[in-house]
């Protein structure tokens, strides 16, 4: 390194001057907080027609798939809620006010009727029109079912036993009536919320397989369901179209997917489709209140009203612009800077606590122009224990299988404290598979009664009663093998990888770690990316099944809006990461899917059984809405948006 050869005589003063200069500037920053915008006068309640609303997408979220029949790789709540459903209405809309219930007013059909011992479903369509003049017809429902038959494995919401496996026939009796006959009796609540919820009628303009073809050129759209014949292999892992109609459906699916950017036969083919979303005439055929006018590959897009929308509520504003953000901090900067009309407040910036989970506290001092509204998602958060784990000298799974241990572990989780301190009151304790908030018709009183409230004394007593020597300073060990259920000397220590999340996630994990230590349960935390955590925490058996616990969030009940357990807790279910297996639980679930049971018994059972360790249910987003923008509240718990309800005042 080249040198300085002179004997330098720098005085410390010069350096100090430099330091002071920079410090002075920094001082001004925090002194200058008095530049908050002046308080808005009380808004007049006159509706002002028009206006542009800018809305912030959640951090690191980009909307990038438009064809509303997609596989898991493009399935995201944001693709569906923020874009697709505003353009292409689903048959049934879920989310009424602040509950997840079915909303008949903006559904395309009247409520389904179940007859013949719940084996026949009749759907009567309302008179809706597509923007190209077509009517929304029963055959278009059949069109969607045809595609499903051929591509069930490429459909994100498919689960074995659900549609189309349990569908015997689908018939369009008239332009407005569809009859679905099932292979056996079903549970109407489950079928409506988890199966019918998947259907989006497709226009005949999409029944083509090459650009420029006339609407209906292919055979798929008009084909009767029975004529679409496929062959499924024994393992239910490959579906081959055999009839000409089925082959036509395959071609239509491939074409529409390619137009959306994904080539199912050759993913590596060059793809530039994102730029065409707003200009492709295919996607301009809409039956929803909006159509896409701008879409750039960075993720910014614009919705403008569809003048031909047939629904009850027509848009009042001129434009909705969706903006993507790289991080919470970037969005908050933009929000305070005045660039956003509907944004969100990161938890670390909440300055006043909520009055109650649903009643917000005072807003941030820099956001005097905004109202804050907590948005609770329709989902649950939990830590997953691996019941087959061979970690901790082969004992981890066996320990998890002991109910008393799970109870002790849960009893050490002080949910109310974390909600109060970390979420500033915007949350509610959860003790079961059905969320207590948002208000819904499914949660039982028992679940809301919090049977495993924070009680470290009881936790320690449970462990001691089962032969453990509790050592809060170090680690608890098993003293009496007969009572413990594991060999003597086994330590109660676990590794818990969790997914990088917000600052409050880190605080939550650290607080729980300290809490478990009270009973000598030594939990070693490690943070990883979301993908490495879920990549590791898969259902497994055998020696290599070493993961012990994991936390990456939880589960969102979408598109399976019915909070039943067949995807999560049933033995062998694909998303039953911890391999929880309980015969009574399986029987109860079956009853809720195919019998006529409500969710009550199953739910209450799981509340007592602790198949996972419940975490507080915090508000998914603290939405900030400009004071003069009305109609955004109440927010739909399924995280879909209805911009047609929004309007400016004054």
């Amino acid at each position, binding site marked *: 390194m080249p040198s300085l050869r002179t004997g330098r005589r720098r005085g410390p003063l010069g350096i100090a001057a*430099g*330091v002071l200069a920079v410090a002075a*500037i920094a001082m001004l*920053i925090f002194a200058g*907080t008095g530049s908050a915008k002046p308080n808005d006068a009380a808004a007049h309640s006159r509706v002002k027609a028009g206006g542009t609303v800018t809305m912030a997408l959640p951090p690191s979220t980009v909307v990038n798939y438009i064809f509303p029949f997609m596989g898991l790789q493009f399935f995201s709540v944001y693709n569906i809620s923020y874009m697709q459903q505003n353009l292409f209405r689903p048959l049934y809309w879920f989310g009424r006010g602040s509950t997840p219930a079915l909303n008949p007013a903006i559904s395309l059909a009247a409520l389904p009727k179940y007859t013949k011992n719940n084996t026949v479903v009749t759907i009567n369509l309302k008179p809706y029109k597509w923007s190209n003049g077509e009517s929304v017809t029963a055959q278009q429902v059949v069109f969607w079912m045809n595609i499903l038959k051929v591509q069930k494995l490429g459909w994100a919401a498919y689960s074995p036993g659900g549609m189309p496996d349990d569908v015997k026939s689908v018939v369009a009796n008239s332009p407005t009536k569809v009859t679905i006959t099932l292979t056996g009796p079903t549970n109407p609540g489950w079928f409506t919320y988890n199966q019918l919820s998947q259907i989006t009628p497709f226009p005949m303009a999409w029944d083509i397989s090459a650009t420029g073809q006339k609407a209906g050129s292919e055979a798929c759209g008009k084909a009767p369901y029975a004529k679409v014949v496929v062959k499924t292999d024994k393992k239910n892992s490959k579906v081959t179209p055999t009839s000409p109609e089925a082959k036509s459906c395959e071609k239509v699916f491939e074409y529409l997917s390619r137009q959306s*950017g*994904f080539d199912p036969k050759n993913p590596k083919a060059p*793809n530039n489709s994102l730029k065409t979303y707003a200009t492709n005439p295919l996607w301009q055929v809409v039956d929803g209140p909006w159509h896409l006018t701008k879409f750039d590959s960075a993720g910014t897009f614009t919705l403008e009203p569809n003048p031909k929308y047939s629904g009850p509520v027509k848009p009042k504003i001129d434009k909705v612009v969706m903006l993507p953000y790289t*991080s919470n901090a970037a969005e908050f*900067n933009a929000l305070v800077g005045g660039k956003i009309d509907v944004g969100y407040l990161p938890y670390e910036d909440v300055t006043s606590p909520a009055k109650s989970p649903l009643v917000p506290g005072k807003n941030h001092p820099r956001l005097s122009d905004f109202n804050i509204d907590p948005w609770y998602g329709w989902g649950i958060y939990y830590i997953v224990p691996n019941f087959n784990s061979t970690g901790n000298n082969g004992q981890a799974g066996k320990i998890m299988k002991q109910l008393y241990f799970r109870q002790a572990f849960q009893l050490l989780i002080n949910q109310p404290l974390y909600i109060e301190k970390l979420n500033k009151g915007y949350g509610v304790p959860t003790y079961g598979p059905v969320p207590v908030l948002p208000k819904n018709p499914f949660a039982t009183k028992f679940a809301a009664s919090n049977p495993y409230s924070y009680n470290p004394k009881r936790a320690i007593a449970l462990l001691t009663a089962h032969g453990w020597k509790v050592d809060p300073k170090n680690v608890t060990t098993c003293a009496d093998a007969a009572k413990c259920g594991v060999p003597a000397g086994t330590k109660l220590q676990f590794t818990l990888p969790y997914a990088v999340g917000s600052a409050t996630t880190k605080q939550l994990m650290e607080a729980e770690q300290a809490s478990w230590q009270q009973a000598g349960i030594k939990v070693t935390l490690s943070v990883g990316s979301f993908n490495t955590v879920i990549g590791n925490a898969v259902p497994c058996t055998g020696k290599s099944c070493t993961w012990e616990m994991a936390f990456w969030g939880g589960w969102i009940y979408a598109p399976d809006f019915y909070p039943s357990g067949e995807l999560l807790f049933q033995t062998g279910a694909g998303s039953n990461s911890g391999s929880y297996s309980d015969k009574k639980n399986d029987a109860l679930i079956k009853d809720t899917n195919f019998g006529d049971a409500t969710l009550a018994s199953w739910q209450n059972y799981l509340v007592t059984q602790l198949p996972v360790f419940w975490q507080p249910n915090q508000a998914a987003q603290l939405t900030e809405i400009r004071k003069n923008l009305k109609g955004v509240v109440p927010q739909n718990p399924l995280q879909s948006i209805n911009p047609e309800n929004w309007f400016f005042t004054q």
Partner: protein
Amino acid sequence: MIGYLARRVVQAILVVFGVMLLVFLLEHVIPGGAARAALGQRASQAQIDQFNQLNGYDLPIWHQFLDYCRDLILHFNLGYSYRKNQGVAQLIQETLPKTLVLVGISTFLAVIVAVPLGVLQVVRRNKPIDYILTGTAFIFYAMPAFLLGQILILYFAIDLSWFSTEAPQSASAWGVLSQPKDLVLPVLSLAAITIAAFSRYMRSSMMEALTEDYVRTAKAKGASQRRVLYRHALRNALIPLITLLGLSLPAIVGGALITETVFNFPGMGLLTTQAAVNNDVPLLLGTTFVAALATVVGSLMADVLYAIADPRVRYA
């Protein structure tokens, strides 16, 4: 020199190949693989198998790598990113120019400020201005990028409203250039740190150059202070800086993750990070490829310039 260059080009190809292979192998260490990362927690084993079969992940690793290389070399096809629903080549084509604009302008600014700053510090050696500049340089150097960025936003964008809180949001490089006002804060944020580093370095190398024999000779021959400074010392003092720039090339191409995050600017830094975090194999390989190219080119430039500057060095 020609022989040396030819050897280096061959080596460059080997380096790029080596990097790709290394990253490729490391990718397979991550559990769940690309399938689980793309499909998420709801995927059944059957769906994962189908995904792997469609995308070639069920082939042996060497076969996968050879396929990738063949697509890259013969078809310029860098693959497809599920997460972004875009071809990797397109993604890089769109993101790289934007990044070059942002980081390139910052680096350029850093150079044109740092050089005179370094010279000034030498000319006014040990005077107050030297101390202040050196002090400020130290402090900016020591500031983490996220701190500087947020402070600039807080003061200039929010409290004073002179600038936007975010960098230009346009998807194209031209669009970014057409919003120069929004570029000010992110460029300043990046440049401040680089200027600090470069000017410190410039100062040292300038001082060193001034002690060389040829300077004393020039002075003895009666050259003015100015002539000595600019014609002799500066020219030679610049050479190490140029080699430093050559070695900065990977950083310019690699983007600035933290600045991009703070200023909401999805550039190459964020693209690479997201690819790593999302286990998006083709995208990660694609961005690594670009970084590797930049590294070998920059490294070669640096070595060549150094050899030109100092004939004593033998690369035998």
